[in-house]
């Protein structure tokens, strides 16, 4: 067993935290502290109400001075929460911060147990293990590495746009990567925004062109991140630019090529208009698309499919911008930090057959109606049925794919408000009778409840009940040729049949279909429903468990535009704080080789996923490059001669922890 690094026997201080009643309510903290006092090497053992408070931290510092402590144990909450706090406190007391060991009495004991006896015994075991372990701790230094002063923003919706602009305005280099041919995201598809009813495009498009024209922003649309390497401060990113079959620097967006296309009729579904209108194989997603570039749909273009087209588009382009031989290009960049703002996808309403989406032509999703209401939409802002008639009765069904154990359990947060908005807009456009079928009306937000009140006075009908089905089976003459909504009106206590011309499904927000692949690419976590997982739900809502990667907007969970923008600003500020420091401090938990003990067997070398281990041919020894080591410890576990050690997780430390767990009988309490 190696020397502990201290002079002679360690002098350990144990500090047991009550955490108010969070720990002390279940664990007999007094008994734990008294027990710890009798453990080998323990000089001081105390309990205190809140160790993380200023007086709690001062207690540690005073005891370090008064009792010449050289090892500190804080038995409180998870080290993932407060290890940093207590390392700081230890350092303030004049001790190397890595002489601290935390014991997780809250998340691992008091919050998961409800019996005082076993919880207290478990606490004693864990404290004893820490006492055995901490004796082997060594003084370590934090590693600092320089940080690249640039940021990658993934996703060009409102969150990504806002984050990119904030960072660029602060003078930082930003790469904004968007998968679609234009930035704008879902917000660009909306007509008005609740509750103020400002026009979505009017407030969004200036920000879109600001992104396009900002000298600090490199905008790559129709592009995807395909490779992520490195770590906080020094990420290496590979971006794939999909071929538009247009030379971007030559195209001016004159749209002559679209007019000249051999397809005289537009006959391919227009994704931006939710398939409600048709476009040609060469198209621009929508009038304000940013950048203003056309692109080809390789599935539709005759030249790209068969190579046998007259290429009338190319003839029409006087700038010779069309290039059918274009292939995907790859860019390699280095960034210090990453913000993911990849957004959501709308719930697929055809998953609920009883609402008839896809079966009855006049059942629409909310996003489709957004396009119908919009002046640049497929009908030029006319809310009409598929056959061109104006509806006289319209129903909006809330919670489609939300708050439903058959599909998604969560509340999508925005649907109540956008349903109210659509009720107002459709009524304004058609003068139809509007029904809202809701479970609960959820309107928390500035001006939101007031908006609901306004709708109530506008004469919109509200029926509380989850709709059972939408059917075209009429039972009376007034139902003939109509869609009938069957619903229990729970406030009246009767089942009603309501004949309508148009049904709008307020579809919920879901994680994107490829969120798992994206999460793996960036090495972050998802919560169970598939939205990206934040580091802490309250105190680190835009951080992830991977340092240097932040999340903003609806990729983290359903949220409305103000919240997405606020979160994007927060993520930008976090990224800024990180890169403005100029360097990052890394945990010193790297592995190192004790050269005299290395036999040169090379078994560690293929194990390292970061190629951090090399073989020194002249010495016949392995060597670890500390800058490349990420501190997983796999090589340490594999070394047959035990000559690889991992700082903070040395064999001695873990063996002692195991020994301490079972030393119950050996210790006289």
């Amino acid at each position, binding site marked *: 067993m190696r020397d502990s690094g201290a002079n002679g026997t360690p002098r350990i201080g144990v500090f047991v935290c009550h955490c108010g009643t969070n720990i002390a309510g279940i664990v007999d903290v007094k008994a734990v502290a008294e027990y710890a006092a009798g453990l080998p090497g323990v000089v001081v053992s105390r309990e205190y109400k809140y160790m993380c408070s200023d007086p709690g931290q001062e207690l540690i510092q005073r005891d370090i001075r008064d009792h010449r402590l050289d090892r500190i144990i804080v038995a409180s909450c998870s080290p993932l929460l407060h290890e940093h706090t207590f390392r700081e406190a230890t350092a303030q007391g004049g001790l190397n911060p890595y002489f601290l060991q935390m014991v997780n009495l809250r998340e691992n004991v008091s919050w998961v147990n409800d019996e005082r006896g076993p919880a207290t015994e478990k606490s004693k075991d864990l404290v004893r293990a820490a006492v055995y372990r901490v004796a082997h701790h060594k003084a370590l230094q934090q590693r600092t590495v320089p940080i690249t002063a640039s940021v990658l923003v993934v996703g060009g919706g409102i969150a990504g746009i806002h984050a990119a602009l904030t960072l660029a305005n602060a003078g930082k280099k930003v790469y904004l990567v968007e998968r679609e041919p234009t930035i704008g995201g879902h917000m660009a598809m909306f007509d008005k925004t609740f509750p103020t009813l400002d026009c979505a495009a009017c407030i969004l498009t200036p920000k879109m062109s600001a992104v396009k024209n900002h000298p600090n922003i490199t905008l790559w649309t129709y592009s995807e991140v395909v490779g992520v390497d490195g770590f906080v401060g020094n990420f290496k990113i590979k971006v794939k630019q999909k071929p538009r079959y247009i030379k971007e620097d030559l195209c001016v967006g004159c749209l002559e090529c679209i007019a000249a296309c051999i397809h005289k009729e537009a006959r391919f579904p227009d994704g931006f208009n939710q398939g409600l209108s048709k476009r040609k194989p060469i198209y621009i997603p929508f009038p304000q698309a940013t950048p203003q570039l056309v692109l080809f749909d390789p599935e539709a273009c005759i030249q790209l499919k068969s190579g046998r087209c007259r290429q009338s588009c190319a003839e029409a382009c006087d700038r010779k911008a069309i290039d059918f031989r274009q292939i995907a290009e790859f860019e390699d960049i280095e960034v210090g930090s990453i913000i993911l703002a990849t957004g959501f996808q709308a719930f697929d309403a055809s998953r609920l057959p009883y609402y008839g989406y896809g079966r009855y032509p006049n059942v629409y999703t909310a996003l489709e109606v957004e396009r119908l209401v919009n002046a640049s939409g497929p009908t030029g802002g006319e809310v009409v049925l598929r056959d061109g008639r104006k509806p006289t009765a319209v129903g909006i069904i809330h919670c489609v794919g939300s708050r439903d154990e058959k599909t998604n359990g969560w509340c999508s947060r925005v649907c109540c408000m956008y349903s109210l908005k659509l009720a107002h807009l459709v009524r304004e456009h058609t003068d139809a009778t509007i029904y809202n079928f809701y479970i609960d009306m959820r309107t928390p937000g500035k001006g939101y409840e007031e908006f609901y009140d306004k709708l109530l006075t506008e004469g919109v009908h509200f029926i509380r009940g989850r709709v059972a089905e939408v059917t075209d089976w009429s039972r009376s003459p007034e139902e003939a040729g109509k869609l009938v909504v069957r619903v229990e009106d729970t406030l009246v206590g009767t089942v009603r049949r309501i004949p309508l011309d148009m049904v709008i499904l307020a579809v919920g927000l879901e994680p994107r279909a490829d969120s798992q692949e994206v999460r793996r690419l960036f090495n972050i976590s998802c919560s169970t429903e598939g939205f990206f997982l934040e580091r802490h739900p309250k105190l680190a809502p835009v951080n992830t468990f991977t340092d240097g990667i932040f999340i903003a907007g609806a990729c983290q969970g359903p949220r409305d535009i103000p919240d997405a923008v606020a979160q994007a600003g927060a993520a930008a500020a976090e990224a800024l704080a990180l890169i403005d420091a100029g360097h990052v401090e890394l945990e010193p*938990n790297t592995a190192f080789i004790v050269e005299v003990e290395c036999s040169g067997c090379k078994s560690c070398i293929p194990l390292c996923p970061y190629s951090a281990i090399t073989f020194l041919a002249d010495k016949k020894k392995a060597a670890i490059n500390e800058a490349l080591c990420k501190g997983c410890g*796999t090589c340490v576990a594999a070394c047959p001669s035990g000559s690889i050690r991992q700082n903070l997780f040395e064999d001695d430390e873990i063996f002692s922890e195991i020994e301490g*767990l079972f030393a119950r009988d050996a210790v006289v309490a």
Partner: protein
Amino acid sequence: MSAHTQVGAVPAAVGTWEPRIVAFFCNWCTYTAADLAGVSRMKHAPNVRIIRVMCSGRVDPQFVLEAFAKGADGVLIGGCHLGDCHYVEGNYKAIRRVQMLRRILRGMGIQDDRFRLEWISASEGEKVKRVINDMVDKLRALGPLGLPRRFQEWDRELAPLEQAVEAEAKEASAHAG
């Protein structure tokens, strides 16, 4: 495996006996999930003592053997789901070590249910609870492993034999001398 080679099911002290489990949890997934179980107040059996490591790939087979030798009735390793390792592939290294360890443990007569490897992501607090409760149930059925006492018994049984061998060796060397 024949019954007489099974270690465990020591009848004594069963009344007050509670299984003790040492759990090696990866910092990035299972340890975080255990924290989540705490934050969500998911009550589970108090029999587990968690040791945090940075990766399931850090779990040296000797840690597992040491835990059993010191008195654990079960050992649990929690890592990231395959493909999700924070360090690319540490969990695959863990699988290989676990396979090897299983053979060693079987050879020592330690039942499979006493040693478990689970993939638990940071969001699966519920799974932490389920796995721990399930493992405690299985260990209750198996009874104590009691390796430290076994070692003592074996030492006691071996002591006279060792003395005899030593005496013989001494005699032989005396003759040779």
